[in-house]
C-alpha cells in the first residue's frame, strides 16, 4: 500500500469515483491543466477529458449555480472553490438553492453536489486565503459539512461525500495537505459520514476537535500523557450534522470537555457542542466546559497567523485548567 499525503489521497478519491461513476464531473478554477492550485485534481483532465474535468470562468456563484443545474439533470458535480474565503459569492446558491432543492420540490429535483475547498490557515498565504467558515455553513439546514484530518479520512470521507445523494461541503485543511504521509488503500472504500472518529481513548477529559487542530490536539495529548493526564480525542469529522451521541457518551466517561477549533470562538461550532452537552450532559460534567478557539477578530496576515491559531500550549493549558476545576 502506497504512502500518500492528504492531497494525493484526495486526488485518488476523485480518480476512483470518476472511473466508477460516469456521472461524476469535476469543476473549478484552474483545476484542469493546472490540476488545481494545490494539485488536488492533477492529471484528472488528461485522464477523463475536458467535459468531465472543466476549468470554469472565474466566478464562484457561477460554479455553485451551474453545479445545481447539472445536478438536477442527474450529474454529480464535484466543484472546487480555490480557497474558503472565496465561498461568499457562492453562498446564495448554496444556501438558497443547493441546500433546499430536495426539500422545496419534495424530492422531485435533488442536488448531489460536493463543494470542496481548502480550509484554515497556517500556510502563510495571502489575505483572505486562511479562513475557517465552517460554522456559517453548518448553520444551514440541508447541507452536510465534512472535514477530514488525515489522508485516510480524506480519501474515505470524500468518497462518501460524492456518493451522498445530497450536497456536502468538504473542507480540506490546507495545513495538512502535505504534512504527513499515510498508507491509504486505493480501494474505493468510503468511510461513514455523520460520525465522530475516536483517535485516542482516554479517561480524564474529552477533547473534541477537527481539521488541522487534530494535529495540535494529538500533540498536546502526547505531552499531557507524560504528565499523567489521559485525553480522549474525538475528531468531529462531520461538522454538521454533529454526532452528539458519541460526544455525550465520552463525557459520561471523562466528566470533562474541551473543544478546540481554529475558527473564531463566537458562534463557532464549538458553541453548538458545548450547548448540547450543557443541555443533555450537564450532570455528567465535573468541570466547566472549555473552548480553545480562534480569537474573535479577523484572521491576521502571515506574520501573526501563528499567534492566532490555537496551538498545543493553549490546548494543554485548557485541559490542565479543566482538570484543576
Amino acid at each position, binding site marked *: 500500500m502506497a504512502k500518500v499525503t492528504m492531497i494525493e489521497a484526495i486526488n485518488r478519491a476523485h480518480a476512483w469515483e470518476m472511473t466508477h461513476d460516469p456521472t461524476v464531473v469535476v469543476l473549478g478554477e484552474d483545476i484542469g491543466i493546472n490540476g488545481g492550485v494545490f494539485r488536488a485534481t492533477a492529471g484528472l483532465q488528461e485522464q477523463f477529458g475536458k467535459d468531465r474535468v472543466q476549468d470554469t470562468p472565474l466566478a464562484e456563484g457561477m460554479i455553485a449555480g451551474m453545479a445545481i443545474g447539472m*445536478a438536477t439533470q442527474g450529474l454529480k458535480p464535484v466543484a472546487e472553490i480555490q480557497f474558503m474565503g472565496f465561498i461568499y459569492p457562492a453562498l446564495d446558491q448554496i444556501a438558497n*438553492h443547493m441546500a433546499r432543492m430536495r*426539500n422545496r420540490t*419534495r*424530492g422531485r429535483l435533488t442536488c448531489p453536489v460536493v463543494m470542496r475547498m481548502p480550509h484554515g490557515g497556517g500556510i502563510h498565504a495571502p489575505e483572505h486565503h486562511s479562513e475557517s467558515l465552517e460554522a456559517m455553513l453548518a448553520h444551514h439546514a440541508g447541507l452536510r459539512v465534512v472535514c477530514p484530518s488525515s489522508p485516510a479520512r480524506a480519501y474515505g470521507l470524500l468518497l462518501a461525500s460524492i456518493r451522498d445523494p445530497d450536497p456536502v461541503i468538504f473542507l480540506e485543511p490546507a495545513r495538512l495537505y502535505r504534512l504527513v504521509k499515510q498508507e491509504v488503500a486505493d480501494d474505493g472504500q468510503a468511510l461513514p459520514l*455523520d460520525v465522530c472518529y475516536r483517535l485516542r481513548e482516554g479517561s480524564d477529559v474529552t477533547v473534541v476537535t477537527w481539521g488541522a487542530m487534530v494535529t495540535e490536539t494529538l500533540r498536546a495529548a502526547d505531552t499531557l500523557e507524560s504528565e499523567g493526564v489521559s485525553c480522549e480525542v474525538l475528531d468531529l469529522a462531520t461538522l454538521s450534522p454533529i454526532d452528539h451521541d458519541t460526544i455525550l457518551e465520552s463525557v459520561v466517561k471523562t466528566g470533562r470537555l474541551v473543544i478546540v477549533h481554529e475558527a473564531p470562538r463566537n458562534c463557532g461550532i464549538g458553541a453548538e457542542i458545548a450547548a448540547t452537552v450543557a443541555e443533555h450532559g450537564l450532570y455528567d460534567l465535573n468541570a466547566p466546559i472549555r473552548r480553545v478557539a480562534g480569537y474573535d477578530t479577523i484572521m491576521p496576515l502571515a506574520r501573526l497567523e501563528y499567534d492566532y491559531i490555537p496551538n498545543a500550549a493553549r490546548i494543554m493549558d485548557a485541559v490542565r485548567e479543566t482538570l484543576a476545576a
Partner: protein
Amino acid sequence: MKTVAEFEIKYCQFLDAAGSLAAGAPPLASDTAELLKMYRFMTLVRAFDTKAVNLQRTGKLGTYASCLGHEAAHVGVAAAMHPEDVLIPVYREFGSQIWRGVKMSTILTFWGGDERGCDYTTAREDFPWCVPIATQMLHGAGVAMAMKIRGQKRCSVTFIGDGGTSEGAFYEAINLAGARALPAVFVIVNNDWAISVPIEQQTATKTLAQKAIAAGIPGVQVDGNDVIAIRHITSEAVARARRGEGPTLIEALTYRLGDHTTADDASRYRDQSEVKEAWGKEPLLRLRSHLMKLRVWDEAREGALKAECAREVEAAVDEYLSAPKPSTDEMFDHLFANPPKGLAEQREVARRYANGHHAAGHGAGHGRNGSDGH
C-alpha cells in the same frame, strides 16, 4: 483609432398593437391551429390569473404575482420549446408552465403556502419558481451544460425580469453560456418595472438585448406582446441551441399591467395614464383581431372559450382548496435522502406542538399582513 468590433441589435414585431400583420411574417402567422391553441392558452391564463388575484383578496391564497399582460411572452416562449427541453421560470411565468402541463391547482398550492406545489406531475425536470432574483440564470446554464456534456439534443430556457438584469448572476450565466457555447436560451421579460423601479433607473442601456454583447452571444429584442414574434424568435433560438450553435439572449418588451404582487400598490409610484396606454398594446386583443381577420374566430367562439376556461379554473380552485394542510412531518421528510438522527427527534417535537397555536388554512391571514409591498 481603428474599429475592432461592431454590433447591432435588431427588433422583431410581426403583429402590431392594432392587429395588422407585417410583410414577411413567418408561416406561423397563418397557421390557424397553432394560433388558436396559443390564443386558448392565453385566455386560460388570463382567467387563471384573475381568479388567483381574487383568491388572494378573499384570504384564500398567499401573496401572488399576477402575470396580467405577459400572456404572449410566456405562452409564446413555451410554445417554442420541445417537451424534453427544460424550463427555468422566475415567479410569474404561469402561461409557460400551464402550456407545459403544470396543473393550475399545483400552482395555487405553492402560492397558497405549500411546498407540494413544486412537485409537478408533468414537466418534472422543469424548475420550480425562483424568488431570489437572477439566481435561476445559473441553473439554466448548468442544465444546458449537463445536456451538452451528454450530447443531448435539448436546451434549457430561462426567464428573468428587467430588474433581474442588474444582478451579477445574470451576467455570469450569459458569459458562461457564451464561453462554453451552451444550448441555452435566456428570455428577459422587460415589463418596464421592477416593483417601483422603472427600467431607466435600472440601467443606462438603450436595450436589454444589448447586454448579450458582454457575453459574446446573439441578443435580439422582440415585441413581447406579439405572440407570433416571440414564438418565432424563441423557436429560432431553441433550434440554434439544439443544433449546438450556442445560446441566445432575447428581450421581450411588454408591460406589467397589474401591481407587482398582491402585496404591492403600484398607484404609489406610477401614473395611471401609463397603465392605460399599455392596455392599448396588450397581447390578447391583437391576436383576437388577427384571428378574426383570418375568419377563424368570432364572438360566439370567444364566449364559449371564456366559459370553458372559467370552468377549468374553477375545477383547479376546487382541487386546490380541498387539499388538507400538510402535516408537520412535511417540514422534515424531504430535507435529506439520509436524514440525521437529530432531525427525527425534532420531528417528534413538531408533532407535539402541531396546530397548538395558529390554524393555517388556505391563505389564513395571508396577504397584507404586516408587509405592504413585496
